[in-house]
């Protein structure tokens, strides 16, 4: 087993473990923290995949910005273990079983496909900013622009909704 492989399996294990904890943790703040941990492990995987820029953005945007937002809100709403509502164990159990079945079915169906490993990475620099930037601003310029509409809309909406109504 090479270093890469061990790294992959280690990260994968941590990722699965921490994401399970996201779901299982009773305290929402813990969930957030585990989620951030998951993001970090995923960043590791990205780097393993030679997608360095994605990995970095993942940390900056996800762990840095989005998750902080989550934390803020949780703090703001003063959520903690005591206030955390719990589903009955039965539902949890059923939920996990269902999810498990789904996973088995999905992996089963994907296994059958057996995508080959033969593809060799042609471009080592593919995951770098320069390369991605080219693609983003050449091929994907339009979505890039259009996303701004989404942001604008979301921004206006978020302000609209979160603001206390004066009327």
């Amino acid at each position: 087993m090479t270093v890469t492989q061990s790294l992959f399996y280690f990260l994968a294990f941590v990722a699965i473990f921490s994401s399970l904890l996201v779901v299982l943790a009773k305290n929402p703040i813990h969930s957030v923290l585990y989620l951030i941990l998951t993001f970090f492990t995923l960043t590791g995987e990205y780097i393993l995949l030679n997608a360095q820029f994605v990995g970095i953005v993942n940390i900056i945007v996800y762990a840095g910005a989005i998750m902080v937002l989550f934390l803020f809100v949780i703090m703001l709403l003063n959520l903690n273990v005591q206030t955390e509502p719990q589903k009955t164990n039965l539902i949890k159990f059923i939920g996990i079983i269902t999810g498990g079945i789904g996973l088995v079915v999905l992996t089963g169906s994907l296994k059958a496909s057996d995508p080959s490993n033969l593809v060799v990475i042609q471009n080592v620099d593919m995951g770098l900013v320069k390369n991605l930037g080219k693609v983003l601003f050449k091929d994907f310029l339009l979505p890039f622009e259009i996303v701004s509409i989404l942001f604008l809309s979301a921004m206006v909406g978020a302000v609209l909704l979160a603001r206390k109504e004066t009327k």
Partner: protein
Amino acid sequence: MTEQLAWLIPVLPLIGFLINGLGYKKNPKGLVGLVGCASVLGSFILSILVFFDIKANGAKTIDLYEWISVGTLKIPFSFLIDQLTSIMLLIITGVGFLIHVYSTGYMHDDEGYGKYFAYLNLFVFFMLLLVLGSNYVIMFIGWEGVGLCSYLLIGFWFKKTEYANAAKKAFVMNRIGDLGFLIGIFMLFSTFGSISYADIFPQAQAIGTPVLTAITLLLFVGAMGKSAQLPLYTWLPDAMAGPTPVSALIHAATMVTAGIYMIARSNVLYVLSPISMAVVAGIGLATAIFAAVIALTQNDIKKVLAYSTVSQLGYMFLGLGVGAFTGAFFHVMTHAFFKALLFLGAGSVIHAMGGEQDMRQMGGLKKHLPITWFTMLMGTLAIAGIPPFSGFFSKDEILAHAFEVSPTIWVIGVLGALLTAFYMFRMFFLTFNGKFRGTEAQHHHLHESPVSMTFPLIVLAILSVVGGFVGVPEAIAHLFGGHGESHLLNEFLSPVFSQSTTILNAAHHGHLSHETEYALMGASVLGVLISIFYAYTVYVRKETVPAAETARRVGLEKASYNKFYIDEIYNAVFTRPLDNLSQLFYRILDKSIIDGIVNGFGQLTQWSADKFRRIQNGYIGSYMFMMVVGIILILVFNFLF
């Protein structure tokens, strides 16, 4: 000439109907009576002309217009006037005219005078159509039409519920027969490709016996209904609810003989089917005896006559069944005379009694109603079969033919004749002899009827007496030194029956000898005389009065008095079960099951809506859960199968 005027024969009464019917409120009574009688008289005169024309020139077909023409089914509105028809025409218009005249007196005080004459005219119209039609469908028109008029006239005094019910019963019973008739017509059409007599009869011999048997039996079902034979006779006694002249005309002289006319008309078909002949004879004989037994114990003067009519009709069918077509027809004719006479006489009695019909309330009317008494006596003698009154000849001819077929039938037939004589004289004696048993008021009211009523009585009495001479049997004619052509009627009608006579003769062995005939006649006359004497002993000598309604009766008497409970049986076997079935169908099958299924769809929708609704329980968690289940199911389905 016949061609130009014959169509007027039915149309004149129709015009009378229209005048009286449309103006039933405004027309003065005089005009109503005049129109009513004159239209029928006109038809009568035309019928006489037609009669002589036919006598001279033979049968005629008169096409009026194409009534229905669909594919190969062509039903022309056309008339066939042959010997049979012309005799019927004479009977219908002649007796009809007399009864119209009689009615002007009898119904004079009735508020529905105009309506009455309208109906009566309409009846004559349909009856004429029945006998004039050149095909079975036109006959069927008349057939049902007279049924309608019978309905209208029986229910003439419709305010009484039981009268209205009697009318309905008559119509429905007739319709049962009509269904048979109708199916018979269909069968005729599919067999012969036509419904015209002229097309059917010549072909008849080429058709297989089973088919003909089916056809003739079906037609006979129709005849059973119309001519009140077992088992469809019960309407006729009830039909006495109508005004008495109606009973005389429709329920004695004309309409009820339509069945005989139909079979006589279809004689060719019948003689080709021995089974049918046997059935006709059997039913006729059974009816004759059965009705006679019932008549023995009836106390209502019209009921006695009604059952007697049923019985006499049975004789006619017996005649048809044994092949005595002329005899049967002869009896139709004489019966028309004497039975009309008897009914009108009874009407006269009832008129005098102020509407009373129960013979137990009568008695000793001889001195109050001499003309009625005398004419009734003639009629009674005629029906009893005393020579030389008309009934003797016609009945004798039927019995003689019956003897040819089987002596047993003859014995039973004579037995019926004895019963007839007994109940008729019972009626006669109870009415006219002895002391008056009615109330004082009725006693004061007693009077002889007006001329308009007695005149028809007299005419009919004469006919009852002499009517038989048109059909004097060869044996008797021989006795008086006559020759072969003494039986005028037979001779006149022979073209109609020639084909069947040939067939019958081919099958039959020789004729009765004159000696046998004398013996038979003698035996029956003797029996009748004894029977009359017995009636005389009981009701005149001993002055027995029939027991009151409430009296205890036993055995056959009880059964006879209660008409063998046939009405009750029909009620229990048909009417009530059908009504129950109706309710069952309506409440259970229609409302609960079929509609229940229809509504069930609605309820199923509602029910499943309620279930579906519960899935939408408002919980995001459960929605998500179900979505995931959906996803998994889809994945499982797509990749594991």
